[in-house]
């Protein structure tokens, strides 16, 4: 009961701030666009009308057409899907693996902790996007692979955060009590430690979606992510840059979409962070 009230209060604090409310609305619009892409898009994103290639914005094609005569607006609408799916999936994968590793590292300590720590330091030593690129060389691209690759390359942060959490929670009396009752290690971890670290996990996840989407756009721009003919924002910019003079809208608008979505996701993430922080909520 008390728990439920706390969540209610958190959500209320979150949406009391205009910035958070605004960014939530924008993100929701993007999600709706992604889900109902087939109803919203005026054209088939892969329909090539060679007679109408590289046209500027007009009534028939609001953002013009690309080098195959495909409608840019429709492709951007479908691209929303790719970005959001990869962003959310990759964050979930990173969170699942990272949280688990961080939890066992912090809980068992000793050699387990050392091994996991050294491995994560090695992962962190390679810049995220370069690690992701090296992995695409091996695993290939496509939506599923990209989500896994981006998930793996961004999991180190979760490990570090969760390890710190566990080290603090482990000291508390209720964990000791649980141990004395004869609870198994994994039960303690999943039933008691994990639920008590849920807010930093949520904060980290909301803040990571944006940077993951940015990374996906980057990989696709370099030609290592989503490949033709699937529409994705990054690969559209990459195709469009050859035709900057003929139709600048074609190359530049997908980038604006990335920026708007990422900015709103980050603002929303900051809002969530502040709403979940009891110090900022004025409770402590």
């Amino acid at each position, binding site marked *: 009961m008390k728990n439920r009230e706390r969540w209610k209060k958190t959500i209320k604090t979150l949406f009391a701030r205009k910035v958070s409310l605004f960014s939530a609305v924008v993100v929701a619009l993007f999600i709706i666009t992604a889900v109902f892409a087939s109803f919203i898009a005026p054209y088939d994103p892969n329909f090539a009308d060679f007679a109408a290639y590289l046209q500027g914005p007009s009534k028939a094609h609001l953002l013009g057409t690309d080098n195959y005569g495909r409608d840019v607006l429709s492709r951007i609408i479908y691209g929303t899907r790719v970005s959001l799916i990869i962003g959310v999936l990759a964050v979930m994968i990173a969170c699942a693996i990272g949280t688990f590793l961080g939890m066992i590292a912090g809980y068992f300590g000793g050699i387990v902790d050392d091994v996991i720590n050294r491995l994560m*330091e090695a992962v962190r030593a*390679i810049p995220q*996007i*370069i690690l992701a690129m090296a992995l695409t060389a091996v*695993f290939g691209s496509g939506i599923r692979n990209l989500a896994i690759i981006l998930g793996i390359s961004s999991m180190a942060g979760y490990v570090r955060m969760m390890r710190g959490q566990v080290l603090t929670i482990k000291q508390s009396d209720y964990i000791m009590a649980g141990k004395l009752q004869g609870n198994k290690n994994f039960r303690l971890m999943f039933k008691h430690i994990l639920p008590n670290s849920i807010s930093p996990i949520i904060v980290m996840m909301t803040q990571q979606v944006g940077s993951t989407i940015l990374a996906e756009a980057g990989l696709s721009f370099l030609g290592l992510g989503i490949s033709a003919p699937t529409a994705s924002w990054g690969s559209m910019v990459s195709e469009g840059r050859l035709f900057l003079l003929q139709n600048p809208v074609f190359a*530049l608008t997908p980038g604006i979409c*990335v920026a708007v979505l990422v*900015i709103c996701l*980050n603002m929303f993430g900051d809002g969530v962070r502040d709403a979940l922080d009891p110090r900022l909520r004025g409770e402590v």
Partner: protein
Amino acid sequence: MKTYVAKRTGQMVLILILISIFTFLLVSFIPGDPVYAMLGEEVSQEEYERVYHELKLDQPVIMRYFSWLGDALQGDLGESTQFHMSTADVLGERIPITLFFSLSAFAISIPLGILFGVISAVYRGRPADTIVTLIANITACLPQFWIGLLVMYVFAMRLGWLPSYGFTWFSDDLVMGIKQTIMPLFCLALGGIASTTRQTRSSMLEVIRQDYVRTARSKGLSQKKVIFLHALKNALIPVITILGMRLGSMLAGSMFVESVFNIPGMGSLFVKAIQSRDIPVVQACVLVTALVSCVINLLTDILYAVVDPRVRYE
């Protein structure tokens, strides 16, 4: 201090060994036959045998790792499958270009970022702060390649002030070199300025609230002295710790900038190598990047220990 440096160096070597294992294993991760994966399915029997033997696939994996590592330490990273020359030679021409861009962008962005961060922290809540924070937040979310295309469209294609691509060393043609460097360097530095600004601002705000800053003020020191002599010194400590990451992100960002402006650096080489599954070059690029960022991390850690003695005694 000596033991601290020795300990950190030891850790760095360990990390580099782990990374070298990972890079080495990249070949084995490739699904299917590694020789086919590297050369394509249409190789002659002799070619197949040669590469099979060259990769030492007839030996156990541990032996292969050590002989690969031994070669790598001597600067022999195998033969590039797309250029048919030694990987070290291919990289040798390109690393200086990428380092030039990364290091100059780094050198530009750190002082500027600190300056903007201090300005926005000192004028907290006033228009100057709002503008700086807003710009920094937006720039941090803009894809680097997009900024590159935008400035290229405006300054090269519309206005015609700058060449839209290419790279020339200053020593070969100074004017052309500068002209070609401005846009890529701007794009690369922008992200660094934004994140350094945000970091400096938040740690400055933390420090300004401290008692000793109030003491400094109350004993009548000028605002300039309080900010630059007392507050900034301590506010910079957290900024130093992320310098290593900054340089790492410069190396990563350099890939996009090189790709947009067609600069023959390590970044564009890396992209090409991945597309054509040129594994020796991919391995070499990952190793070089990891080595550079590890060394920078080590240097920042040492710097950190110098400015904050508490770290040494941990």
